[in-house]
């Protein structure tokens, strides 16, 4: 089977993204100012980092809708550590570690106790969000040291480093998923966990691993988002999980597991990150944004279903 056949989804989402860019070039060339492209990339960086983690989770035939709450907690942790006078690298490490720990909580419940991921992460989403609200009572983390914003690198360097770091993380994981045994084990687990077990893969360990990776990457996403500001709001990340899942699914990763790629997810992130501001540039009223975003998801998914007779995968 030729490359086109196996990567048909990535090509279709790439084509859709190309069409959007052409439309912008024709009707709203102002979109292509250097400043706007940079802002779109800086804005998309946290979503990309989380989308990398979500791709792994969905490839392993799981789902995580609690990353919105994890995002808020990790940002607050980063701010609190920085405010306590710790050096920024330690605060950053704290955010990632918190994410990894929260991911591990999901991992233990799903991989350890074999509970369904959708319900476990629904519970952790609600539980973590309300606990954070109860503890912080809505008070933002303020009076952060000057070194917090842009990790002390200054605005210009910071606005280059954030998308750069996100793309680097994406490239590393994309390479790993293709060339490391661990990456192939994720594909195998999502394709058929029982068969994977027989070929020596440890599905439960893989599932635990993808949830921890998801948590750590959510921590990084929260950090990359928080350091763009001088204080940390405590109710951030609401709806973050739906935006990330939408990007990964539009990018062609199948919810049934085993099929999909990080290239597709990158294109999905770029498509949805561009669609938001593009609607404004193309003059659509704010109150139609959400409807059009929903439409993009449905059209992308329906196109895929029309394209190929989706293979009905038997449940494990």
């Amino acid at each position, binding site marked *: 089977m030729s490359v086109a056949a196996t990567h048909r989804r990535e090509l279709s989402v790439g084509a859709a993204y190309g069409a959007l860019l052409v439309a912008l070039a024709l009707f*709203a060339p*102002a*979109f292509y*100012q250097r*400043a*706007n492209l940079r*802002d779109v990339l800086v*804005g998309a960086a946290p979503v990309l980092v989380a989308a990398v983690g979500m791709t792994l989770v969905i490839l392993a035939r799981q789902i995580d809708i609690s990353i919105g709450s994890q995002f808020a907690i990790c940002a607050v942790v980063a701010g609190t550590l920085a405010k306590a006078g710790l050096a920024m690298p330690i605060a950053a490490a704290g955010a990632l570690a918190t994410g990894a720990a929260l991911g591990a909580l999901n991992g233990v419940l799903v991989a350890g106790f074999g509970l369904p991921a959708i319900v476990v992460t629904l519970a952790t989403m609600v539980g973590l969000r*309300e606990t954070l*609200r*109860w*503890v912080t*009572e*809505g*008070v*933002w983390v*303020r009076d952060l040291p000057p070194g917090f914003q842009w990790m002390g690198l200054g*605005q210009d360097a910071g*606005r280059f480093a954030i998308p750069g770091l996100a793309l680097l993380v994406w490239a590393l994981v994309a390479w790993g998923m293709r060339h490391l045994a661990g990456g192939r084990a994720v594909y195998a687990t999502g394709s058929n966990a029982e068969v994977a077990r027989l070929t020596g893969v440890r599905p439960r360990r893989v599932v635990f691993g993808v949830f921890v990776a998801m948590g750590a990457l959510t921590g990084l996403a929260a950090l990359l*988002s928080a350091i*763009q*500001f*001088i*204080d940390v*709001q*405590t*109710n*951030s990340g*609401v709806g973050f999980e739906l935006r990330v899942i939408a990007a990964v699914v539009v990018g062609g990763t199948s919810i049934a597991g085993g099929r999909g790629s990080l290239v597709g997810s990158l294109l999905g992130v770029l498509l949805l990150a561009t669609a*938001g*501001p593009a609607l*404004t*540039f193309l003059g659509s009223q*704010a*109150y139609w944004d959400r409807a059009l975003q929903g439409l993009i998801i449905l059209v992308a998914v329906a196109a895929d279903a029309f394209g190929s007779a989706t293979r009905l995968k038997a449940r494990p």
Partner: protein
Amino acid sequence: MRNAALLALLLGAVACRGTGEHGKTIAMMPKNKGNPYFASCRTGAEEAAKELKVRLLWDGPTETDPAKQNEVVEAWITRGVDAIAVSVENKEAISTVLRKARARGIKVLTWDADTEPDARDYFVNQATPRGIAETLAGHAARLLGGKGSFAVITASLTAANQNEWLRQLRLVLAERYPDIKLVDVRPSDDDRKRAFEETQTLLKVHPEVKVVMAIASPAVPGAAEAVKQSGRTDVRVTGLGLPNDARPYLKDGVLDSAVLWNTKDLGYLTVQAANALAMGTLKPGVSSLTAGRLGAVKVEGDQVILGTPFTFTKDNVDQFNF
């Protein structure tokens, strides 16, 4: 103020219920508990509650949700409280429940945002929408030199307060500043990052905009940061915001002015008024109310007036901490 462990909480709830009441029980509700604006109001409310030795119940939906506000009031009616004070998310929706509370002999106040006048005894008014619109329009006109265009970042598209202020703002513009054009209104859903992204896009879609007006507390730092990062020194920000949020940007100069009222005093005054109402000292015909450290506060008809909107600038912002 950090809550004790869960068990202690449960025991606390049982214990204090059992020992009977000393002062009145006042139930106070914000629009959403996650908003720093209401968090600062709460500090003032608790200060007054301590002074007056009343039992303050602070509860409400975590996200702005009119249905939840009704449920909380219903619960308070069932629980039995002396006075209810609500910052109203949805004028019509809450009026039915508040009338029911008054029918049960519970004193009802609204603060920060009002409901139908017949559904409550008094409205603790920090500033009239008209007053707010005039102040904001004034700042915009000043910054634009009487001519030019500006854009607004609001809370959510469905937020009742903001929509009322916008309606008044358009009236004021039509009456007094015909040459000033409001080009667009973008939502921030009370999320600072969303306000930041909307402002960024706004500046590029409407390069002619020289003033960004953020009329929700989390939107002020969001819009200001976006303008700062865009490097557009020709664009200034104003709007309704808390001094603590606004301080760094006021010092920076990107934020010209933040209009608001002393939210701590608003919370403080609301509890004072509720207590006075419950004790009977605040009743129709009264023209002023001695409210603790605030002294004599003007009462016009059924509105307790905190005062005219206050403008924070880089010079006076340091005197405030909320």
